[in-house]
């Protein structure tokens, strides 16, 4: 009996390790290979340690251009989606209006439908009304699939929202504007931040929808995808490693902030 329990425990550990191995094997190869000095394709065998790829990265202007396009698109669409989504979530929570049910249903479409369907439908619309494909269409498309995630996050936070605080603020003489910025927004902040973070992550890594609306403006994932067949050069590994470290750092910092705020609490 005891032996069986022990066997089960080691099975548990082995199983979980294998799952993590499956998920992290390519990522660890990316990080290790970003320091690999090999110069022969497919850049996989270890030939010694080097920082060269991190230096060569700054000479690869087309890759950096694609990356800066991605950042511009991700930041712009995150900001737009967060503003529209937050206002929309509050509005839909607070007011009844014509077509509310329809909007509610439409919000689920970008979330559940296979991305390719949204991609081709935006493509047909854009080409029908003759918007040249490029930065603008990419941003429009990204905002579209980011909005629902912002709304769902803010809505989750609104579920525990107490309207009487706002009324108290109005009674005490604050105007609607001030109430919104000093009462409503701070309470919803964790939901808004969570939604914005999710929107940013989705936008930065989007392949399918971007593929149909990009025109001449290549994003970073599209640029990499284009070179996959011929072999991705190792400076991409270097850039990926930088992004990975930056994200981990960012998450640790913001998560720490959220914990602190929650501990202090809003007294609500």
């Amino acid at each position: 009996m005891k032996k069986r329990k022990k066997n089960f425990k080691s099975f548990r550990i082995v199983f979980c390790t294998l799952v993590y191995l499956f998920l992290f094997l390519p990522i660890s190869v990316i990080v290790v290979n970003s320091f690999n000095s090999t110069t022969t394709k497919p850049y996989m065998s270890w030939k010694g340690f080097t920082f060269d790829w991190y230096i060569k990265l700054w000479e690869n202007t087309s890759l950096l251009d694609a990356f800066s396009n991605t950042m511009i698109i991700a930041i712009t669409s995150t900001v737009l989606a967060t503003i529209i989504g937050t206002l929309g979530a509050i509005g839909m929570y607070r007011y009844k209006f014509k077509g509310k049910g329809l909007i509610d249903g439409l919000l689920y479409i970008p979330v559940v439908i296979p991305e390719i369907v949204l991609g081709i439908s935006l493509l047909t619309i854009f080409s029908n009304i003759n918007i040249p494909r490029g930065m603008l269409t990419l941003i429009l498309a990204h905002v579209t699939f980011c909005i629902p995630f912002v709304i769902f996050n803010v809505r989750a936070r609104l579920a525990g929202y107490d309207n009487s605080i706002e009324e108290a603020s109005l009674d005490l003489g604050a105007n609607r504007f001030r109430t919104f910025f000093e009462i409503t927004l701070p309470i919803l902040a964790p939901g808004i931040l969570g939604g914005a973070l999710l929107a940013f992550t989705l936008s930065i890594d989007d392949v399918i929808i971007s593929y149909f609306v990009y025109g001449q403006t290549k994003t970073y994932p599209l640029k990499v995808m284009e070179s996959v067949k011929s072999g991705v050069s190792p400076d991409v590994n270097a850039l990926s490693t930088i992004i990975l470290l930056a994200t981990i750092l960012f998450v640790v910092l913001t998560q720490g902030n959220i914990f602190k705020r929650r501990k202090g609490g809003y007294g609500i």
Partner: protein
Amino acid sequence: MKKKFKSNLAKFAMITPISLWMYIMVALPFLYIILISFMHPGTYGGVELGVTLDNYKELLNPLYLVTFGRSIVMSTAVTCVCLLLAYPFCYFVAKKNDIQKKILMSCIMITFCVSMIIRLFMWINLLRSEGAVNHFFINIGWIQVPLKLVYSNMGAMIGLIYMLLPFMILPLFNSIEKIDYTILEAACDLGAKPFQSFINITIPLTKPGIFAGSVMVFIPSMGLYFVTDLMGGSKTLVIGNLIKNQFITARNWPLGAAMSVILMLITYLLLKAYQMAGGSMDDLSGM
């Protein structure tokens, strides 16, 4: 009077942007796709006005039917493998203490930090016939000749499972974590064997997670054309490839639109079934 005006202004400012955006960028494009699926293809891409059912008739071509069938078999297989990997994994992780759980689950999220295209490219390198994985299995003596793990159906499967596994793990973990262990203890006290209580108690209690995870894996897997493009063989494997080819290569928009309408229909039916089985739409977006 003034107050009422201000209140209406606030309502207007909050509701107009979201409504306009959803109508123009979601409702309109989808209606348009449905509309052009009934039109004739133009000579150089685009569409010609007119009403026809030809596009749907063309879908009955065995070539397309086989691909639709293959795609559904593929997605089912991917969903099953993801479930078989994710369920024990989440079950084991859920038994850890709070801090360990938080760290282990954050690790799953960290995988999203590296562009998926680059991760897939690394898998291609690792899985090739002269790649590290085949090398490893030959060295430990499990296989003699390299397996065809990439540029084959197997490769496409591995790619899809790799991409979609986190979407199975997240909802599943949420519902497994919520299990009330006192119920399992009660079952044990009443004489149930571990296997019995697993089948009769644990699985029914975690049904919401199983359903939500399966939907979140099955539906996207039908459209992930680039995974099968990069890692699959020469066969067209998922519905997404068919649609992409019609819009980008063959430039037959109405036919591509008809395929998309079928894909939307499959999605819709799956979601209806999911809701009828008691699934909540919020679980699908709550990641």
